[in-house]
């Protein structure tokens, strides 16, 4: 079993910071974006941005698996 690359772990931390730990920064009504209160807009945006981060992590993992041959023993 191969350990995940440190960069993909960091990429995975981005959504946790944006969605979870920074709640007091974005939990507000203004500014209203596309008719949505800011907190609703922010979390809906991260439904799309999370896959962007994880796609980058996916590419990284795939590349390192390919260069290691068959992933190795765990």
């Amino acid at each position, binding site marked *: 079993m191969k350990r995940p690359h440190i960069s993909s772990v960091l990429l995975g931390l981005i959504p946790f910071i944006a969605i*979870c730990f920074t709640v*007091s920064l974005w939990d507000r009504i203004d500014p209203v974006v596309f008719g*949505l209160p800011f907190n609703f807009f922010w979390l809906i945006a991260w439904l799309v941005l999370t896959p962007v981060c994880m796609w980058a992590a996916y590419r990284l993992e795939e590349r390192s698996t390919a260069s290691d041959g068959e992933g190795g023993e*765990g």
Partner: protein
Amino acid sequence: MSPSVSALSITTFIGALGSLAGFLARFGRKMDLEQWTVAARGFGTMLVWLLMAGEIYTTFTFLGASGWAYSRGAPVLYILGYQPLMYVVAFFILPAVWEIGQKRKLQTQADFFQARYQNTYLSALAAMVGVIAMLPYVQLQLAGLGIIVEIASYGAIHRTPAMIIAFTIVAAFVFVSGIRGVAWASVLKDILLLFAAVFIGIAIPYHYFGGIGPMFAAIAHARPQHLVMPGSTKNLGHSWYITSVLMTSVGFFMWPQNFAASFTARSAKILRRNAVFMPLYSITMPLMVFVGLTALMVLPHLSNGDLSLLTIVRQTFPAWFLGVIGGAGALRRSSPKIFTVQ
């Protein structure tokens, strides 16, 4: 046809069709235990997706999200928070779980603890915790199903017989077809719920307020405190949000049924790639939240917020449409995966 009869016959028809898919899933396969529990590790991208992401579309999606938006307000945002994050966790742990499962031919979560840690007590403990945790979960899902059928039948069918009938049918097709039946039964359910969610999530705010933006503007004017945490509750503030989002997202794949579903995949790559895109599937959750918020302004005096979605759908659309929602909800019933895990 009276509204209750037309709604109920559509609910029944959809329920029957979905169950049929569950029964038929067996055909053309030699059934042994590995086939029954983990589909002989043969699921490709689509079936793994249905099995895992389908878990989002539970009764909770429809009733719980709109109900929380109605009665609690902004704390409902925790649902939009934990869903993408649980797939970030899945991205890292499921491929590893799959690899060990593949190597040792594992079928359940308890097997995994036995294989990984060589400790029978630990795996027995994991199995027991799994079963105990499952009981309230099953109860919750069944209660949701009962509510859906009761409202969709305009009270003609009481929730208890509805729960018993649905539970029996699900247990039967899972007994016959195993995890394959579970995955195939959710094809129809996911399609229906996806379309129904998009449709009512846009149509209901539009019908009463002329759009989602004006609906929020009306609430921001009348009850601004409802739209930021702790909303209409006393204590669901930011520290509650952070702890709940963390616990739910990190813990989601501890559920034995979600954990063991990873064994059905053909490869670890399928699990990882699905985990990347699954947050997109949650895009219907905000729509359910919009329906609950609209209901708050239109029907402010409901005794039970969990009924807000069904009540406003019943008030806004013809009876047959309520039947479609009822059927889709009834198909979701008690996450049939649970029968295959222990």
